[in-house]
């Protein structure tokens, strides 16, 4: 029972982290119609910036904030220099150009930080186990991730649905010529949205960094997961991304935790231990395939146009 609660919370934490990544992706995709494969690179840069700034300032929170700012800036520069010229191209050009960016970022990181991974140590006050129920302890840092991600999700919802800038973003998504004709600086708006997406990816990266090591290519596997999430959730839908992210996080975590034991009931022990890791990695892709076959537009299609 204890294990179930713990794995359940782990699934929630992973799902929320995936949401941060997927939210940026789906915003950029839904609003600018831009496929950004380099989103995972921004996630990686967030983690590397955090490791550097935390070591430099000696303060976890300050370092994290600096890293967040740095990723935001990087996203804005990237959009301004290269990506804004690609908006009116087809998706294939986006894929190719951002694939080039992935190559670039991976080698740039290797050049600057070296091929070995970095560690991001946690401050002592975040490493203590936290008692969530009588007798049930859970790492404080993972709880903090859940808290921060939930706050950011709420904030994002508030900004997009309840503020003027959010209204402009949504208007830009449904008709970009019209909102330009109304005198709104659509280019600036797009740059801001891209920067916001980059910052969200950076936040996910720097929060994940203390749990895993900071390494080259860390953004690639999780990027594919984020794409799976926005496809399941329906491209452009924040709500869909949220639900799909939680769902995928749960399946991934619970599958890894409990599938080996489940398989052992029906298969021989050796067969189960070889089949289980592959099967639990496949589960998510299987889920996506099923969703796409049944509902090709995703579970919660954003009612665009």
């Amino acid at each position, binding site marked *: 029972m204890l294990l179930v609660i713990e794995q359940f919370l782990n699934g929630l934490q992973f799902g929320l982290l995936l949401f941060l990544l997927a939210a940026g992706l789906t915003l950029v*995709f839904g609003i600018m119609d831009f*496929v950004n*494969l380099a989103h995972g690179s921004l996630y990686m840069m967030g983690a590397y910036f955090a490791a550097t700034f935390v070591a430099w300032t000696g303060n976890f929170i300050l370092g994290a904030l600096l890293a967040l700012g740095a990723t935001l800036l990087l996203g804005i520069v990237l959009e301004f220099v*290269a990506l804004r*010229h*690609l908006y009116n*191209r087809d*998706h*294939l*050009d986006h*894929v*190719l*150009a951002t*694939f*080039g*960016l*992935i*190559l*670039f*970022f*991976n*080698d*740039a990181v*290797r*050049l600057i930080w070296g091929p070995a991974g970095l560690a991001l140590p946690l401050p002592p006050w975040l490493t203590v186990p936290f008692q969530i129920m009588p007798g049930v302890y859970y790492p404080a840092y993972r709880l903090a991730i859940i808290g921060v991600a939930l706050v950011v999700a709420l904030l994002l919802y508030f900004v997009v649905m309840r503020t003027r800038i959010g209204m402009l973003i949504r208007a830009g998504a449904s008709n970009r010529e019209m909102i330009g004709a109304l005198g709104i600086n659509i280019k600036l708006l797009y740059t801001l949205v891209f920067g916001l997406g980059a910052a969200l990816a950076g936040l996910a990266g720097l929060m994940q960094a203390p749990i895993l090591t900071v390494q080259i290519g860390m953004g*690639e596997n999780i990027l*594919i997961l984020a*794409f*799976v999430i926005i*496809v399941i959730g329906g*491209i452009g839908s924040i709500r869909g991304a949220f639900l799909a992210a939680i769902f995928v996080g749960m399946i991934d975590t619970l599958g890894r935790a409990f599938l080996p034991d489940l398989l052992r009931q029906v298969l021989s022990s050796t067969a189960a231990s*070889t*089949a289980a*890791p*592959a*099967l639990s*990695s*496949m589960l998510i*892709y*299987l889920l*996506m*395939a099923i969703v*796409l*076959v049944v509902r*090709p*537009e995703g579970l919660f299609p954003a009612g665009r146009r």
Partner: protein
Amino acid sequence: MSASLNTRTIIVALVVAGLLLLPVYTTLSGNVFGLTVFTRIIIYALAAASLNLIMGYGGMMSFGHAAYLGIGGYAVGILAHEGIGSGFIQWPVALVASALFALVIGALSLRTRGVYFIMITLAFAQMAYYVASGLARYGGDDGLTIYKRSDFGGLIDLSNRVQFYYLCLFCLLGGIYLIWRIVNSRFGMVVQGLRSNERRMQAIGFPVNRYRLVCFVISGTICGLAGALLANNTDFVSPAAMYWTRSGDLMVMVILGGMGSLFGPVLGTIAFLLLEEALSQFTEYWALVMGPMLLLIVLFARGGIDGMLGRPRRG
């Protein structure tokens, strides 16, 4: 127009002649390395040409094409591991396995369009990647070493570099001839018509998805052949052969060369792999140059190499 067309024809003829004569040069000069590099290039060119069939002519943007490289390779590797060394068994199995995989994922993926199609093909290829990683008996993550290349009796000796090179070149030219015949057939016209205007083709009465699926399966089968060649070339097959970045590489080769042009993928593959080779001789951080170069190509050189040689880009 006709002058630029001539430049293109001349360049393609020169490249083909160069590929045909390359072993003569390497044998005379003793430069074995060049032959190794170009064997690899030719195999990838075959894979890129097969991708071009669905991407350039069929308008189906598959982001999971490397899966067939792995399936073809694993068919050869697993049979060799189990003691079946005959190429007359290995290669047909590689082709049939690729075709079946293409049939299944094509039937599912073709229900979607656009970005969804890109993503679902990617997801299926990742699934194949994880299945291969889980094959503990055949090396799992570490991959499978092939101790003996496919045995074709007295017909051809794959361990002989020059013979293997010519076999690969034969497969490439044969593949391109096949694609040329397909593209100019009634079937190919229908598939190209689907790329331009699906709704109209449907209204005329063509069974849209059946045509697309057949094209998808043909492409996957050709790529499976490339996978069998690749496994023989490296004497090794591993899940990394179907990782999604490999699919990305294949897409880059096609687009770099020029989509929907017969020899474009060959030129694109030569350019991409030679550039990679040259840059990695020059610096360890070759992707630092390659990445921005891709970006610049997308921004400024639409239509790829073939487009630069004067072919007007299709609208």
